């Protein structure tokens, strides 16, 4: 993920968080998004992270980090505890896709989900040329990628419809972090959704 796009992603999410709101960041890594939401937006944040190195870095960042595996759901977190539950660029690595989306909207009032768009034109070009795409946003080879699910804006929206999830807002970014308004499923590299019930 390019630094520019990462900032753009975080900018959007930060703009949706109001002071004093409670945020749960799933797959929070070193907690840099939460740190920003706490410092800039006055949010109260918790993160969930599986990897030991991420947990240690988050502790160093003074983040309320809880080590745990998203594949096991969010057992123990009470219903409707958070204003926003964030899953930033992680959904494509999760095996139990529907369960995690349901769990996010069980513990939170709003789910914020961002993911790389597999139908981005450069990805399509790569496949047309006969190879799986490798780019700054999909930096892995097919044999070492942590990504389990490859999907597009249209795919995701049809899953939301099937699950009865309401799309409250959708923002799509290109590789430079600019908002895309035309042909988002073709020109958009990263999609960021706000979902509710």
């Amino acid at each position: 993920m390019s630094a520019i796009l990462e900032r753009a992603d975080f900018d959007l999410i930060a703009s949706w968080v109001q002071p004093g709101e409670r945020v749960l960041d799933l797959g929070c890594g070193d907690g840099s998004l939460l740190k920003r939401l706490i410092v800039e937006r006055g949010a109260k944040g918790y993160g969930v992270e599986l990897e030991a190195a991420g947990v240690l870095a988050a502790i160093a960042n003074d983040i309320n980090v809880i080590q745990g595996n998203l594949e096991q759901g969010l057992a123990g977190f009470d219903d409707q505890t958070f204003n926003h539950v964030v899953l930033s660029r992680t959904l494509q690595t999760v095996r139990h896709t529907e369960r995690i989306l349901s769990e996010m909207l069980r513990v939170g009032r709003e789910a914020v989900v961002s993911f790389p768009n597999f139908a981005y034109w450069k990805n399509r070009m790569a496949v047309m040329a006969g190879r799986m795409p490798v780019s700054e946003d999909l930096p892995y080879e097919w044999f070492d990628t942590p990504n389990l699910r490859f999907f597009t804006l249209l795919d995701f929206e049809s899953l939301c419809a099937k699950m009865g999830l309401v799309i409250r807002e959708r923002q799509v970014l290109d590789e430079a972090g600019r908002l895309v308004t035309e042909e988002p499923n073709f020109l958009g590299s990263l999609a960021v959704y706000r979902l509710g019930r």
Partner: protein
Amino acid sequence: MSGVGIVAAQTAHFTQPLALKGGGLLPAFDLVYETYGTLNAAKSNAILVCHALSGHHHVAGRTADEFGKPTANIGWWDNIIGPGRPLDTERFFIVGLNNLGGCHGSTGPASPNPATGKPWGADFPVVTVEDWVDGQARLADHLGVDAWAAVMGGSLGGMQALQWTLSFPERVRHALVIAAAPKLSAENIAFNDVARQAILTDPDFHGGHFYEHGVRPLRGLRLARMLGHITYLSDDQMAEKFGRRLRVGAGSYGFDVEFEIESYLRYQGDKFAGVFDANTYLRMTKALDYFDPAQDFDGDLARALARARAKFLVIAFSTDWRFTPERSREIVHALVHNGQAVAYVEIDSAHGHDSFLMDEPHYHAVVDTYLKRVKL
């Protein structure tokens, strides 16, 4: 020698009576303690280390022999305390004590009962985690510590750290609750009761007044410790360390020591029975059984913890089946429910419940990283 070097215990004498949770009053009492590092001018760098079932005040360093030379008597959590270690004595002032009812110098069942002049024995009151914390608060007063930078402990020690945040919310800024649980399960209590029955049914126990008979219930204490030891280890670790290996010359189809694990447990049992007090053991296990801060809140742990002001670091170990990670997560989720500050780490370790005492690099890195961000 790395670490804190040679250490010596001190004794604080308290003349103000202490009211106990189970009723009754301790008229006066002593607490024996050790300290490492220096209390800063602002008195803001003090860390209290609480001990578990069989622990005591000698947490770090080595005691000296009569010539002032270091002995082999090394503190029970020495690997985490000292210059450059996670509990960095260049930065923190660290206090370890022997709890009330103990048998390492603090007032306990073997101490003289002022009413009779004879050892308290069975008449020494049952003390609770709350009572220990009250006693520790007296020690904090004695040392001039208004608020601890952190209170920490493993197992039963972790329960004391948790209780500190509830008994004295304004006096503890960080609580490190390690390999602990918010209360015992029925299985935990069952193990404790078998251990107690081993002691109580030992003919040398004499209803707890064995001191005046000049004997000690060594067999009961030994069995209690052997049972406890099984629950502190993991199955994998036992398999790796001992397997089904036989001792040399074994295979006699008798009941003497044959397997290595038997030898190990008997050694641990004998070592413990030689130095520990049976009445103390009974009281420590009772304190564990009774601990349940949610009891007064209809079992609602979140409501019970709501009054805590401290930030928490909760650590559990993957192979700990005495206090499993699930039990630690109960504490974590109650704190999250309340919007309280907490970090939770689950350490991969092969050493079962005993993992909290091990020098495992990632575990120590977590404690070190957490304590580095504690402001003084």
